[in-house]
């Protein structure tokens, strides 16, 4: 069932005080693909991600992950279901080295009491760490304190940590923001490979139109908290409302 949605958002609204950040948003993310979410700054993209991963309660609506209603679950619970997110403001454990950042990012789905006191790593886990750090090009820096890495390297580390967690679905909040333009193609390639080779469904917020048009099969566009349009990259790119929203915002 490749086309069955893994995420179903239905009629979700969320306000901060008087600011309506999301209004009656409905969308679906099909399993196995790459879905994009675009929209001008402040259009409510991050808010929608936060709602999906349980960061805050939603005002109305329903959010389902593989058919299960998750809108009342807490953040760690949802993460353990295999629905993971990265942050727009990159977040890593900045006083720990890269290896330790990776080791604590193993899946916690079935962590029992005794698992909490196991050795930090067994051989297969360490091999996995090395492989993934190599995949994002951080192998040589694996023993450095992660907070000392450049911003772009920290973003790559955060991505590798997410892969270490073996999620089914990964929500990426502006993965290319702040990354050196010469490195963006490499990152896009890695995102694609994570999708194709590891089978991880991606749901990507992206400000850079060129990037998302190249990657996603389906794109949703938000403006002023409301869903404006959705379709294939071509359809969305040529949608007058989308063009207006972007022009209007600039």
């Amino acid at each position, binding site marked *: 069932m490749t086309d069955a949605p893994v995420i179903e958002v239905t009629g979700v609204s969320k306000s901060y005080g008087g600011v309506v950040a999301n209004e009656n948003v409905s969308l679906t993310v099909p399993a196995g693909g790459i879905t994009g979410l675009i929209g001008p700054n402040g259009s409510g993209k991050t808010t929608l991600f936060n709602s999906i991963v349980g960061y805050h309660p939603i005002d109305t609506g329903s959010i389902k992950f593989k058919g299960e209603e998750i809108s009342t679950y807490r*953040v*760690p619970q949802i993460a353990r279901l295999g629905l*993971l997110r990265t942050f727009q403001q990159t977040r890593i454990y900045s006083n720990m080295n890269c290896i330790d950042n990776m*080791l604590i990012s193993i899946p916690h789905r079935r*962590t029992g009491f005794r698992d909490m006191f*196991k050795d*930090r790593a067994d051989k297969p886990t360490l091999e996995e760490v090395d492989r993934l750090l190599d995949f994002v090009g951080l192998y040589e820096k694996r*023993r450095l304190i992660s907070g000392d890495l450049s911003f772009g390297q920290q973003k790559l580390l955060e991505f590798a940590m997410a892969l270490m967690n073996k999620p089914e679905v990964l929500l990426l909040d502006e993965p290319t923001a702040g990354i050196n333009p010469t490195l963006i193609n490499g990152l896009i390639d890695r995102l694609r490979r994570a999708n194709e080779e590891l089978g991880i469904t991606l749901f990507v917020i992206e400000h850079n139109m060129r990037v998302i048009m190249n990657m996603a099969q389906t794109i949703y566009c938000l403006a002023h908290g409301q869903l404006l349009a959705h379709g294939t990259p071509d359809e969305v790119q040529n949608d007058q409302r989308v063009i207006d929203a972007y022009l209007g915002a600039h």
Partner: protein
Amino acid sequence: MEKFNPKLHLPILVFGLAAPFVVPGLTIQVAVLWVMVLFALTWDVMGGQMGYNSLGNIFFFGAGMYICAIVQIAFITDVGAYTASNGGVRITFTHQEYFMGLICGIIAAAIGSALIAAALGWTVFGLRGPYFAIGTLGIALAAGELMGTWEWVGGGGGISMPVYPGSADGKAYLFYFLCFAAAVGTYLFCSWLYSTRFGLAINAIRDDEQKAEAMGVHTLRYKTIAWAVSAFFLGISGALFGNITGFIEPLEVAFPTVTFGIFMVAMSLLGGKGTLWGPVLGAFLFHFLKEFTWTYFLGWQWVALGVLIIVNVVFFQQGIMGWLMEKFPEKFGIVVEKKEAAE
């Protein structure tokens, strides 16, 4: 877990075992040094490794002290009657009564304190940053006041502890070695704990708790266990300390928030929080300086300690171990590693 390192561990072991025989006049001071090592190590589980700066950990020292006293007394007589006479009836304990009571008391102090910590964890861990610090301080302060009103355990008048059935020297040796063993046990436990996933998890919570939650880490579980671990060993230290002083009362002895309660923090910061050896080093230095100033600068001792703490937190926040790690990162394995070299 750290391997046995003769250059590092052996001198400390020899010092610990020989001290009461080499400098018998200082047995109690050195015993208190081991209590300080335990204080700093247990504070650092929370403050340094997990980033939760508790100002109220001394609460578990007092809790352990009272739990142990109650168990020791209850072993042979009614607690209420014993405390009501307040030293009036001098009950003599036989060897067997005393030691059975002491052993059970220490065990109960450790487990009881850990259970109290677990129960409190559900409420205090809703607090972050300065609110957590003040919230925990509030617990320790309130405990001192509340114990003062609880007549069954002697109220503000305190409790005269069961008298050791033997010579004064015998008592000093016994409690010296119990303190030493408690400190070594705490050190070994921390050393093991930090080598497990648990160590990684609490470090992750320290660096970014929201990130850890977003990655599915059972943060509340780890935090609660970390606090219970601190409380377990602090409970033991309280049980021993109460017996060493021979008299316990709530404010000065059991819940000394502004002395021992602050020393714990100061020692960890001095040696370098978030490291295994920092708190040990900090405790040695701090205790030495404290004894030194008390002996030679009496009247100025608080000023001297205050200056030390200020210099530490203003100019030297990373502490001694943190400074060494910055200065010699390669000695701590913080290096760029070429791929070929490793394969």
